[in-house]
């Protein structure tokens, strides 16, 4: 198929449809409106369902119902709306229901602003909801990657029976880039024989996260933890750029990673051995990528569009073996290459 020039938000929507998603429940919020709007146009064309829910709370619970009924289903929102979905996400994880949730982050806290940010990293990767659960989180850095990861997200969700989140930001949602769609259905996905489709000729199926006996609930919880371990083993995704001989490794994801890549190129031109480690999966955090780094690495510099969130995962991974530094802009301000280079030089210089 020829390349198309598409907005990130629309590309996610089309990718979902290509991956077999026929149910979308959402509620408007900037900067992701093009996603539901696209769905409202496209779903009727493919006999799918687009429904604007009365709220984000309702939308995530419609997702719960549809996922429980066995459908591939998606919802999308931006920061405040995602906060409202936290109870529902916890329920989805607790009831082991697959679905794909998109968060096109904007500046916070509170109503904040509508400019791009990455300040929902903690919420996404640690579970903003209650209880010991995790959501698998991808942080694409281009429109094409939004497409690819969205498609993959549906498969991974079905495989693990767990919600998967696509974490973008206003830049990724609003920008247009050329994209191609190549969906090859994953093989070996488990049948959804647990879905509530009507108990015809079989025992009733129950979708549930309640267990009044603590010991039973704990067993269930350890099963969830086992899934997260398995995902940590199998689903780490990352990109290494210019790391082979790097002394300073910048760590950044999403929009920020693109700017950092430019910065790395300029640093190299200036004779500084910089590289980029780009986490693509945010949960599981790509610890394996760190294991692949050469021993030449003297410093890490985490760069974020937030006040210091992913840097915790870098610290937890590096565990004191190498100094970890941080540079961040927050609330919708996008860092420029120049300021990153300045900080990188400080860090690199500080080591000499």
């Amino acid at each position, binding site marked *: 198929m020829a*390349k198309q*020039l598409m907005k990130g938000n629309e590309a996610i929507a089309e990718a979902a449809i290509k991956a077999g998603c026929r149910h979308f429940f959402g509620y408007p919020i900037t900067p992701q409106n093009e996603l539901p709007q696209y769905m409202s146009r496209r779903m009727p064309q493919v006999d799918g369902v687009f429904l604007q829910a009365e709220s984000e709370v309702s939308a995530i619970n419609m997702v719960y119902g549809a996922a429980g009924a066995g459908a591939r289903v998606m919802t999308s929102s931006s920061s405040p709306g995602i906060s409202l979905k936290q109870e529902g996400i916890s329920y989805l994880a607790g009831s082991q229901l697959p679905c794909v949730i998109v968060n096109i982050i904007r500046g916070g806290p509170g109503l904040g602003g*509508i400019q791009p940010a990455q300040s929902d990293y903690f919420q996404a990767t640690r579970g903003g909801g209650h209880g010991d659960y995790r959501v698998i989180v991808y942080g694409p850095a281009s429109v094409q990657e939004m497409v690819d990861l969205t498609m993959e997200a549906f498969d991974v969700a079905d495989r693990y029976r767990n919600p998967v989140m696509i974490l973008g930001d206003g830049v990724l949602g*609003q*920008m247009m*880039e050329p994209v191609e769609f190549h969906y090859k259905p994953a093989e070996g996905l488990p049948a959804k024989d647990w879905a509530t489709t009507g108990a015809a000729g079989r025992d009733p199926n129950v979708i549930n996260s309640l267990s009044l006996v603590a010991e039973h609930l704990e067993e269930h919880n350890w099963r969830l933890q086992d899934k997260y371990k398995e995902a940590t083993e199998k689903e780490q995704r990352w990109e290494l750029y210019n790391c082979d001989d790097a002394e300073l490794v910048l760590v950044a994801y999403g929009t920020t990673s*693109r*700017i950092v890549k430019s910065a790395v190129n300029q640093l190299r031109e200036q004779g500084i051995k910089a590289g980029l480690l780009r986490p693509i999966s945010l949960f599981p955090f790509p610890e394996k990528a760190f294991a692949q780094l050469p021993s030449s690495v003297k410093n890490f510099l985490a760069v974020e569009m937030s006040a210091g969130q992913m840097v915790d995962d870098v610290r937890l991974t590096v565990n004191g073996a190498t100094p970890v530094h941080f540079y961040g802009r927050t609330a919708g301000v996008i860092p420029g290459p120049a300021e990153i280079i300045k900080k990188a030089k400080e860090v690199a210089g500080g080591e000499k």
Partner: protein
Amino acid sequence: MAELILAGFGGQGVMSMGQMLAYAGMLEQKKVSWIPSYGPEMRGGTANCAVVITDEEIGSPVVVEPDVVVAMNLPSMDKFESTIKPGGVLLYNSSLIDRKPARDDITVLAIPANEVANELGNTRVANMVMMGALLTQTGVVKVDSIHKGLEQVLPSHRQDLLEVNKQAMERGSKLAAE
């Protein structure tokens, strides 16, 4: 690598102008990105977008120091003139902007886009006049690619507009070549 900002009133067609450029770049196998500004400034009635067209991978699609700025109205020129890279290009719509740009370290082209468009009998192609001038001045993509893009982009019932768009580009091109 070319980083462009296209700015004007809402309705002046700067958004689609940017999309056409990105589309043409894509047809030429380049890396391209397009991004609108979607901040509160939109409310003021002005709109702008940033386009990057390059052979390398694109870092930030958000352009802070553009190589080229197209300013379709005064607020846009006020806002972006100072951001242009030294040696860069400013094309401005002299039909609506009466002040002269102050920068002397950039190439400046005054294009009476609305006047030309009116002469062609369709004010809405003022953006394509600018487009013609832009391509001639910068060569960022080929005229042909824009034509192909136009064919793709115009809905079938609007293909009659193709001709006037092409004419507009030609007129703009000539103005730039002068």
